[in-house]
């Protein structure tokens, strides 16, 4: 597939716009010196990702992403930032001084990963995405073939819930224990 043929598809224009937004905001997520901004950029990245999912006609997962991540996880992060009193303003102390190493390592990882996918898939096309997967199919799969992993994941969530409470709970001081 030539570049001309590729660029001729209107869906790819949309992809380019979304991808640029995703990458741009992702870069800001890891470089922003303001922690609240970083979290908000992550919201944008995740929204872009949801848009990518829609392009790939995975509507259900896209909306799950919006609800769970943007709706819940981000709020958790904001709480975490508030509670740990991370420097919410601009500060230079947010990154360590080993950016060079990190840059080299992550660039190498990117080169290896993209080379691997290029050599494996070349220009394989995605054709006929159609209407996308109906939620019904997903529901059947989750509660049919994958019901055991589904239950296990549910259990993991429960364990995480209890574990989170247990870990973060402040142990009562002896005086408080007395008062109880």
């Amino acid at each position, binding site marked *: 597939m030539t570049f001309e043929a590729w660029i001729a598809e209107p869906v790819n224009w949309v992809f380019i716009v979304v991808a640029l937004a995703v990458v741009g905001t992702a870069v800001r997520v890891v470089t922003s010196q303001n922690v609240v901004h970083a979290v908000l950029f992550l919201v944008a990245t995740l929204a872009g990702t949801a848009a990518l999912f829609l392009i790939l006609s995975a509507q259900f997962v896209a909306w799950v992403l919006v609800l769970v991540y943007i709706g819940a996880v981000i709020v958790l992060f904001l709480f975490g930032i508030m509670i740990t009193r991370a420097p919410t303003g601009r500060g230079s102390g947010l990154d*360590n001084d080993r950016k060079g190493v*990190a840059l080299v390592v992550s660039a190498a990882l990117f080169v290896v990963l993209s080379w691997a996918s290029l050599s494996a898939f070349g220009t394989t096309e995605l054709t006929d995405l159609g209407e996308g997967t109906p939620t019904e199919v997903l529901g059947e799969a989750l509660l049919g073939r994958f019901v055991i992993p589904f239950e296990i994941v549910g259990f993991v969530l429960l364990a995480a819930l209890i574990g989170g409470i247990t870990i973060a709970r402040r142990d009562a001081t002896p005086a408080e224990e007395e008062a109880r």
Partner: protein
Amino acid sequence: MNPLLVLAAEEPAAELVTGGIWVEWAGLILISPFVAFLLIIFFGKRLKYLGAEFAIAALAFNTVWASVLFVLNMTRGVLYERTFEIARIGFLGGAKELVFELGWMVDGLSIMMYFLVSFVGLLVFIYAVGYMHGDVRVTWFFAAFSLFAGSMLVLVGAPNLVELIIGWEGVGLASYLLIGHYWEKKENSSAGMKAFYTNKVADVGLILGAIIVGVSIGTFSFSEMSRLATEGGNGLAAVASVAAALLFFGAMGKSAQFPLHIWLPDAMAGPTPVSALMHAATMVTGGVYLMARTFPLYQNLAEGVRPAMVVIGAITLFAVGLLALVQDDIKKVLAYSTVSQLGYMMTAVAAGGYTAGLFHLFTHAFFKALLFLGAGAVIHAVHSNNMSDMGGLRKYMPTTYWTFVIGSLALAGIFPFSGFWSKDEILATLGVEGYTFVMWVGIGGAFVTALYMMRAMALTFHGTYKGDGHPHEAPRVMTWPLIGLAVPAAIAGFLNIPGVEWPGIRNFTEWLAVRVVKMGDYHPKEIDVTLAAIGLAAALAGLAVGWVLFGRDAATQRERDRLEIPLLYPLFRKKYYVDDLALGLVWLVKAPFARAVLWFNDYVIDGIVNGTGFLARGLARFVYGGLDQRGVDLIVNGLAAATDAAGSGARRWQSGRIQGYAASFVGGVVVLVLAVVIFR
């Protein structure tokens, strides 16, 4: 060949039991303590005895079951093996296969160990209910104790090396937990770690040996291994010596053979019931059991390794036994004594005395458990481990005293208690197998054994009481197990008197000979009266010297101090009575001349008797101070220093910066992916 001897189990047992519910379901013995462990963990705290109920119930169940097997084996012989395949791994490109199995083994050797672990364990558990009363972590103690007994049962019931290693490591873990039971004190948790580390060093040998055996014959099964070792001329023969040496190295750690015995005396930091079980039926017998289980390998293929094993066993039995003479802690006396007796067992098995070594293991389990429980009762009464705080307890604790005497006499090898018969059989085997010098070392060991046991008895139970408060006899929950152990400690030896057949039951040699292959060891058909007399004489001489040195003089505080002068330095280290300390100091400073005269006087008058004792003590102090504390510890410390140096080099990598680790990790992934892609 000595005409007095016959090959053990010349004919196979007439009617072997190879089925039936008791035999086929014997695996329940292996499982029940683990069930008890879980029940204790989850429900223990709610019960009246904080979980001890489950532990005792499991072992009572096991004792009943094992007793049935024991009687079956005693009358007819039982041979059964059940395995379940867990995994099958091909290697060398599928040319060879290695089978992993779990299961249980029911033969003469296993049944003896089932019975021993269950019976001694049950009595120790019952005793522990009394001993641990009011302890901070009773529930946890019984949980770990069940784990301990269960792991040992897995170890002795294992039909292959892999399952044996599982049990072996389980025992190591449980012993670590139990030795460090009072972990609030640093030295106790350090003792636990020392035991764990020392055992780990030896475990490397065991695991390598197991891998070599498994790879060479494609299975870890003991039965298969025994069969191949007996037939000879196959893949096993080529690697037998290396494998045997490595397995023996593993056994040296668990069975505390010189120089890996160092963990055992420190392991006294645990509660006394732990020491009792660990030293009698569990843990330390694991190594001897392994040697017995793989005996055909040593007997038929690994001839070259055996003399080295005999030498190590002989050093252990004599040199380490001497250390017991200078200990003040009663449990350490018994600990060094255990090491010494393990030396006897190992020497016997290595010299080819399969039955002799195991017979000593059998009798030793009873009397050493008895002695430890007796010592525990004493410690419980006087709240101190030190014999310098005891004395005169005979009057206060008659039951403990008399059972302790029985145990001591059995350990010393006095006719007709059990130790006499088993020790005699070891000596006879050593003589017949041509290890004459080692046999004399063994006789010397019998003298030392009697000497230190008399010392312990005299200092603990005779003379006057020197501790605080009023000692009292232990509660009945503790004295009954003592009596329950005193009976077999006294009479177990009759089971294997050479040339004596009891009506209706076969003798010990024949039970143990119920294995898939013939052991081919020797068993005296008639008792060698001369040798028995020499052994007994050595033991009696030890008792006599001990009585003269310690019994008579322990009457008053002052005289006892005089006696302990050569040992003043260890006494100073102990928290001794302040007035005694002052007395000793004054004496040391003010009257060195008088002291010298007194000493001279003593040694001239008491002549040979005291001379012998002094010599033994000097030697002991040399061995303890010079060889053990400097020589052996030097090697150990050297290893530690080397580890430390290697660590210092390696620690630069451990910067503590998590992100540095993560960067290395990701970089490693990149390199690995590249490597896979390039070299595919």
